[in-house]
């Protein structure tokens, strides 16, 4: 708990944290509002209240995952910044268990990413309901939860993957490049390959897009959640094991 407290103080006492978060939330909110407005304007007037509520949630979580790269960058910087300044030594003198430090950083970043996603999702959802008022959207339907869970998980995963890559590579620019390759570039390349579907199942982006209903289903929902979650957990475990040496 002490380590988590210390990492939370570290995170919140840097202005760059708030700049990154502020810009990520603001940009995502604007795009969510524009996206939701555009989608709703194309709805057929016979849209049922349940479908309307679902449509708003989907539009909102497309917006939420737009904030993933700035948050991934925050994940990277949280550790690469300490390597760059040399302050990592002070951290390890204070807390010799390196894996505990990494876990504490992960807990703090995950919480931060979830709160960030809510700062986009809640206003976005309320805005969507206001714009779609004529369709009388219902309360949250049951099938909205995988969308909410998947979108939130994606933003947490990208943040923690950034942390793991920063811990492994230590260099901020290299870790950021690796993060973008995994999240953006490889899924794009995979689409053009004959065995692309398999690559898509194994990379984090397709499962996330499937959960927020942006692409056709190619795997069961539980597989999508497992693969996506694995991209947060496995790289962190590898980083912790490599850091032990």
């Amino acid at each position, binding site marked *: 708990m*002490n*380590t988590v*407290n*210390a*990492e939370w*103080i*570290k995170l919140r*006492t*840097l*202005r*760059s944290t708030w700049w990154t978060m502020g810009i990520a939330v603001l940009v995502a909110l604007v795009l969510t509002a524009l996206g939701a407005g555009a989608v709703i304007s194309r709805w057929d007037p016979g849209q049922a209240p349940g479908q309307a509520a679902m449509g708003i949630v989907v539009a909102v979580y497309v917006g939420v995952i737009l904030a993933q790269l700035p948050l991934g960058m925050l994940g990277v910087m949280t550790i690469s*910044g*300490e390597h760059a*300044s*040399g*302050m990592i*030594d*002070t*951290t*390890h*003198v*204070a*807390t*010799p*268990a390196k894996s505990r430090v990494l876990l504490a950083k992960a807990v703090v970043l995950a919480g931060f990413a979830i709160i960030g996603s809510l700062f986009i999702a809640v206003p976005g959802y309320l805005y969507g309901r206001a714009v779609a008022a004529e369709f009388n959207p219902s309360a949250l339907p049951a099938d909205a939860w995988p969308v909410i869970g998947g979108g939130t998980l994606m933003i947490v995963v990208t943040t923690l993957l950034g942390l793991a890559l920063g811990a492994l590579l230590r260099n901020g620019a290299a870790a950021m490049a690796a993060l973008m390759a995994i999240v953006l570039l490889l899924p794009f390349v995979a689409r053009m390959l004959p065995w692309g579907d398999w690559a898509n199942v194994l990379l984090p982006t397709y499962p996330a897009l499937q959960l927020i209903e942006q692409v056709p289903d190619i795997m069961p929902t539980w597989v999508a959640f497992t693969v996506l979650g694995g991209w947060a957990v496995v790289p962190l475990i590898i980083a912790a094991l490599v850091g032990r040496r």
Partner: protein
Amino acid sequence: MWKTPFGPIVERVIEVNGLTRRFKRTLAVDDLSFEVASGRVTGFLGPNGAGKTTTMRLILGLDRPTAGQATLGGRPYRSLRRPLTHVGALLDATAVHGGRRAEQHLRWLASSNGLSARRIGGLLELVGLGEAGGKRISGFSLGMKQRLGIAAALLGDPATLLLDEPVNGLDPEGIRWTRQLLRSLAAEGRTVLVSSHLMSEMALTADHLVVIGRGRLLADAPISELVRPGTSLEDVFMELVSEGAR
């Protein structure tokens, strides 16, 4: 156990035993053994590249030895719980994030070991950063960063202090201040190990010297024993280092 002997009892607190660290081609620390007692300032002396920083990093568990071990009160550093309450360390004073305020830097550090933040204000006063505590570290001079590093080392009121070249880059006033602080900490019964490549500085600060060259132990003796009538400590140092080089 070893936190208590505040007082005149001289106890071996830091024990370095056959410590060796090889980096690819360089043998930075070579079968080094020495002990550091409480209640006095022990100077850890050697020319640049002698292996002082590497030894301190090994003691603090920041690096793993190729052979041998270093213990504090009989235990390896990594096994200490809330280590800042046992050991205070200053390695590289510039290794801090410039974006934080001095007081914020001390706050996360205190929190990491479950220490109250109440001491922070007093410590900043003690090291002469009372005014600068709310300022961002990026605006600090090297001397101010050294003072912040000393405040960080004292945060947990530790019985043992390890300081790597704490007066490097300080002005004469800062050097004098550091010297007096180290002497008073030792007088309280604490164990103080302070490294330097400057013999003249150690002559004024330390009671006991551990001299190394090329990673090997050259001398381990009270200052009074090292200086013979008619020779300066500087001469003794040069003699030791040139002998060690052979």
